[in-house]
């Protein structure tokens, strides 16, 4: 059994990107029953299309139904689950025993995966969920590698592990700071990320604030590339990328990096240092918070962000809207100009660098610089391209 690479998608376009860049499975949700109220732009029709697209390319489609529901949230849920089954969705990811039971009764053709919102950290908890009928468990992000090894020896249900993306400061599902401070429900898709705000620290009445920054619970993001080979050796069922709110370009790079590294492992039996360096180079391209290895190596002093700035990348230059006669119609994301060295990034293969020789707008007028967001210009490309390609700054 090969370990699955599972990627997120915030809309249909991103679901297609995820599949094209090598995700074995893609997960997404409709706003109503999902935990990313703002990230879910999937209509029922989009879900059907995404599942169909994934299947046609040999991938699977999972739908998140992972809110911690209130009584009223069950309205329409049974019909929704039946529709998901009709669309061919492979599994739902849920955090509620009742939703699991409802799915097994109303839509038994779909697997039920237990969300990380349940913070499953140990083998007896896995066994509890298996006994209730769960078919996969997404582990809590706090599981350390040594513990994971022991869990894998005892687990009688497939296990999914996060390898990349945002980390909750607190145990997922066990945090209602957002509820208290903003009245937005962390467990029903409204998390205001209040953990990332600044806090004064007191001992009694005595303020203990440092001079340089206030206390924040906000975590660095997870990047488990260094642990990937070890995780693959454990035969976990699935390695999961977080980030349903991330851009298509972010997803393409992150998925491509992990796809490359996983394929390297299965083709050569190991991930060489050279391959790892290339994969990490791909990961470093995309805008992100500072990263760390999560809890895999233990509880790290490097886990907190405090006032460290995000790494905002200007690397992404344009998306490809159309291709004709050797030229691509590019939609501008960051400035570029005639003479710049850019690169064409495609789902398969290495990037191809090229120099921008001529830029022409849709009226046929030559333009020396692309400096307006979403500006559309025809540019000669070094190879055939389609809507799944991106134009980025060249690294050569």
């Amino acid at each position, binding site marked *: 059994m090969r370990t699955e690479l599972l990627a997120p998608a915030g809309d249909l376009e991103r679901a297609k990107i995820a599949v094209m860049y090598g995700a074995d499975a893609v997960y997404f949700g409709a706003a109503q029953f999902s935990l990313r109220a*703002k990230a879910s732009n999937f209509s029922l029709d989009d879900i059907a299309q995404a599942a169909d697209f994934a299947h046609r390319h040999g991938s699977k489609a999972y739908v998140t139904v992972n809110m*911690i*529901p*209130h*009584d009223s949230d069950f309205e329409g849920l049974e019909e929704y689950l039946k529709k998901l089954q009709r669309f061919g969705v492979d599994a739902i990811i849920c*955090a*509620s*025993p009742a939703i699991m*039971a*409802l799915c097994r009764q109303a839509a038994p053709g779909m697997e039920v995966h237990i969300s990380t919102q*349940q*913070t*499953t*950290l*140990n*083998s*007896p*908890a896995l*066994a*509890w969920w298996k*006994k*209730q009928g769960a078919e996969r468990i997404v582990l809590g992000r*706090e*599981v*350390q590698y040594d*513990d994971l090894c022991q*869990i894998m020896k005892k687990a009688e249900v497939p296990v999914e592990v996060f390898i990349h993306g945002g980390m909750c*400061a*607190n*145990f997922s*599902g*066990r*945090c*209602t*700071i957002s*509820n*208290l*401070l903003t*009245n*937005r*429900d962390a*467990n029903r*898709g*409204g998390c205001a990320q209040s*953990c990332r*705000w600044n*806090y*004064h*620290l*007191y*001992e009694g009445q005595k303020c203990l604030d*440092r001079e340089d920054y*206030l*206390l924040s*619970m906000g975590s660095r993001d997870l990047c488990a590339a260094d642990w990937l080979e070890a995780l693959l050796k454990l035969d976990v069922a699935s390695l999961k990328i977080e980030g349903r709110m991330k851009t298509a370009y972010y997803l393409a790079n992150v998925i491509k990096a992990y796809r490359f590294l996983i394929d390297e492992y299965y083709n050569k039996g190991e991930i060489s240092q050279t391959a790892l360096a290339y994969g990490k180079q791909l990961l470093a391209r995309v805008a992100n918070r500072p990263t760390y290895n999560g*809890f895999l190596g233990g*509880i790290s*002093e490097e*886990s*907190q962000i405090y006032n460290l700035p995000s790494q905002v990348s200007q690397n992404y230059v344009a998306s490809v809207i159309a291709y004709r006669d050797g030229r691509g119609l590019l939609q501008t994301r960051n400035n570029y100009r005639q003479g710049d060295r850019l690169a064409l990034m495609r789902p398969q293969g290495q990037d191809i660098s090229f120099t921008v020789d001529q830029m022409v707008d849709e009226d046929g007028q030559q333009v020396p610089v692309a400096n307006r967001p979403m500006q559309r210009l025809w540019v000669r490309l070094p190879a055939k391209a389609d809507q799944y390609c991106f134009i980025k700054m060249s690294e050569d």
Partner: protein
Amino acid sequence: MNIIVSLNDIENLVSAARFPISHLLIGDGHFSSDPLAKKRDQISRFIAEAHKLSLKVIIRVDRLYEEHELEALRDYLRFLNAERADGLLISDLAVAMLAEEEGLNLACLYAPETLLTNSSDVRQLLQSGMKGCVISKDIPLSAMKQIALNNPEGCWLRVYGPQLIAYSRRRFVELYLQDGREHPKNYFLQEESRPQKLPIIEKSTGSWLYGPCLQSLTEIKDIMTWPLHGIIFDGAFSADREVLQALRLHLEVLQGQLSAEEAAGQLPAQQAGYQALSAIRRTVMDKEDLA
């Protein structure tokens, strides 16, 4: 109706037993969130003394546990069973599984703080063998009542005590101060634009962040008509005298000896302030919904 009261000091056992309570809630240092923790011999004595006073004892085994802790946890559960503890307040489903595997006579009350927000999940958990479920405190009072009505005799409700709003494996204070210490009491976080101070308990096993202290003085008469299995006065890190004072005030309101307003004025001071159970609002999804 059963009443659980948290207690830290065995010296207060007799005082507590003068109230019409049925259970005591205690915890040890390692396997619970309890910052004022008891060692095993103290737990044994606590259970024995409580039983002499016809009080049952619920043990707080309410952390989330890592795989490498399981053997120690299993051993601890065996110890509690041997000492004839009456039940466990749990937050990790693993505890229920281990108790079942070991054939222990320990009733599990599932109290994950945030996850029991609907009737159907509570029903599923009770059907799965859980002896009781503590309704989450982050839903409106009407929703709590509905869950109780739909699961008669299976539910417990926290009516008094600091509300846990976040639980983490990280140690935020220690990481911030870089002082290599535990911070089990008297530490607070205050969001930079808000006045309220939030108590934080930090031990080697993680951090527990609390919001305002819940009280149910206005609601207690109504709550006592619900088909609950019991109510809980859980002082968490509070001193026993404060919890017992709060219990007395709620009972006096219930018996008509004090008005809710009069009783509220006599509640022990709390750094994070108080929140009435009925003041918990229905939450929304995003900023637009707030408008």
